[in-house]
């Protein structure tokens, strides 16, 4: 696309959208958002960039190929589910660790496999949609 306004605005938009996607991912457990929505917004960010600068440039900006991102995401999601095996729980039982306390109320923050799983979802959605879009754009 040859619009100067769009090209100029895209650089700014991409960064904002990408940060926003992470924000949506992290707030998902209590407020509207989550890995699925976050991944979609992240994909939109890079699609905007690819429309402005072309798919080759967008691939460079992503650094890792989207197919790999998606695969790694699936792997992370699987590992998050298998982590419960070490605790003797069934597959995909959420594991919670309270930092600075022993329950949600008393702790400062928590480390949990549920968020790890959501990060996996985020990466799969991001990588899956981008691999599709880039392939579409490059198919000329």
């Amino acid at each position, binding site marked *: 696309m040859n619009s100067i306004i769009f090209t100029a605005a895209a650089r700014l938009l991409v960064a904002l959208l990408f940060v926003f996607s992470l924000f949506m991912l992290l707030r998902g457990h209590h407020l509207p958002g989550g890995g699925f929505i976050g991944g979609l917004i992240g994909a939109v960010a890079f699609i905007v960039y690819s429309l402005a600068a072309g798919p080759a440039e967008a691939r460079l900006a992503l650094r890792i190929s989207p197919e790999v991102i*998606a695969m790694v995401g699936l792997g992370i999601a699987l590992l998050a589910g298998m982590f419960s095996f070490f605790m003797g729980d069934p597959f995909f039982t959420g594991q919670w660790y309270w930092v600075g306390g022993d329950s949600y109320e008393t702790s400062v923050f928590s480390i949990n496999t549920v968020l790890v799983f959501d990060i996996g979802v985020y990466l799969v*959605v991001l*990588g*899956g*949609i981008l691999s*599709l879009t880039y*392939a579409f*754009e490059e198919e000329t």
Partner: protein
Amino acid sequence: MADHSDPNAPWKSVSGIGTSAITALLFVFFLQYLPGVAAGDPVRWVIPWIPSLDVNLTFWIDGLSLMFALLITGIGAMVMLYAAKYLAGHPQYDRFALYLFSFMLSMLGLVLADNLIALFVFWELTTFTSYLLIGFSHTDPKSRRNALQALLLTAAGGLALLAGFIMLGITQGTFEMSQINASGSLVGQEYYTLILFFVLAGAFTKSAQVPFHFWLPNAMAAPTPVSAYLHSATMVKAGVYLLARTHPALSGSDLWIWILSIFGAVTAVFASFMALRQTDLKQTLAYTTLMALGTLVMFLAGSTGYAITAAMTFLLVHSLYKAGLFLTIGIIDHGTGTRDANVLGGLAKAMPITAVAAAMAGLAMAGIPPFLGFIAKEVAYAGALEMRLVIFVVPMALVAFALMFAVAGIVAYKPFYGPQGKLPHKPHEGPWPMLLGPVVLGVLGLAFGLLPGLSAYYLIEPAVAAVMGAPDTGGRVKLWAGFNLPLLLSLVTFALGFVIYLKHQALRERLARIEARGPDLDAGWDVFLDKFMALAKGQTKLIQTGVLRQYMFATFAVFAATVLVTLLTRNVGGLSLGFAGLGFMEWGVAALIVAGTVLVLLTSSRIVALVALGVVGIGVALIFIMYSAPDVAITQLLVELLVVVLLALAFLKMPNLDPTGVQKHSFANAALATTIGVLTTIVLLLVVDQPFDRRLTEFFEAASWTEAFGRNIVNVILVDFRTLDTFGEIAVVIIAALGAFVLLKGAAKARAAKGEKE
């Protein structure tokens, strides 16, 4: 021969010595159970797998499984050591070692598993690993074809077996074979016939009974150590094992007796003639394996002590001598460069140790006293005389055993003492890792025969007890059973066998002529596969038109038909339309959606249609927001956006809509679309008319915070309560993305290649 390498290559690799050592350790591990099992104390280990479906990894060591386990690990260790030397320097030896070891473990799992589902899984694992082993020389198309043949045939049998197992498990209320056996015979029960057919289909394909026999000689495409292993104690014996394992539950009916007797006997006699006909020693041995399998099946038809003892004794002795002979053939091949029975001869001087090992295996095979083979034959005749179809079984057994005697001479005597032909290179003795197996196996065949009491007490009688499902009285396995009918039959066998051996050259030519006239099942298999592929191609062409519009029409037409039929046949009551409570905003959004839809229908530009469709989607998202479902609304909005972008990218490269094309299809499409719209509206109104069941909502509202520490119920359901579903969905996302990626890139590549050509 291409499948082995130069004798000077280093062979002491981790993958060779390591796997062999682990297998040997497993052998020692199983040895410790001998006294306990012999005393009638089976061992049972249970590891819950899917307890809710009654699927457990239950392992059960009784006489039958222990005998198999010892044969698998014992012969396995020697074969692995042998293969390390045989394939030394082969570029893919490590892969081979992995295949062989995995095959050993699958086979071990098969004979130890008590749960039918676990047994089935191991059964299929042996199919897959044996496929890899048979097709190991994967650059050879014949080898690949033969491996595929074995895979397809045994896997088809495996599917039948699964059906049989599921019926067996459901009708008996348990999937544990030991419990099914303990609760007595199934004969006369409602589903008995069906279960029997399915189980037999699995066993007969795996154990290569006529008419499924042709894959087995073809499986000789594998390197010789694999043949030695697959054809002695493992793979092909799996079917026999299955028949023995299910014997207490399924045997005794007329059907069982007739089918097993006839198929077994025909296989045995057919195979022993075919063995005589071959000139490649490896092929000869392949057919003698078939003969042994037929004999085993035939004796498993019976239920008397002698018949079962015959089966178990013969199983043991066959495993020992067959593995030994295959390994010997490998040494001969290695040492002379040929396996042609017409050329080989006079090797005893150059290969003395091989000659002794082969002699011991051959004597056991021929059934000469005091080898265990002799006892097996005596017991077999005694068993045959006790069987229901005695008039049929005894002559068949006599013919098979006599031919076996002759074949033993061809395989174990003639190459070493017969006249020597022109050999490809000067014969030399095999190295010790290759000699160890044949020698140990030969000595065992002799030792078990000399000590019949011990081998009966520790190995044969516990196995017989397991097959009969009752403690065994024993006392049948004797070196000298007195002057009786079996001994007489043995003497007749020797005489007949000796005559056949002397005349085998002439007989072979005659057999070759008969074979040429008979039906060629192996070629028939290829024809069958070709026809099957043609059928698949034809029906794909018929159903898969490649026109997206037709697919969508078919999909929606089926959807409309099913919903319509349901609505018409069920009494659904009246519809109530409530417009109360709808404000300006709701009507506005509805108008927006309708306007978008109308625009899609009227425009002749793809891009306009796409944007109008986006308007519809955003209208739906607005409705989600109004009824407070922000997560769904955000997702809908984003997906709508992405769809517009993706389709716009695609549409940029497509021409404007063709007005005439639209006209041609419009009436049927409009009718279908209207039907779908009306039906969906009716269904939705009916759904809303029902009182809303809030139980699930209440549960998630209550549990989301207390159990999953999250306040956003939608997300908590996605990532915690229903994680497995989400995992499946993201896997689908990846598969879809990769599929589209490959299609797009593949199309681009094909075009690029075409461009280069032009």
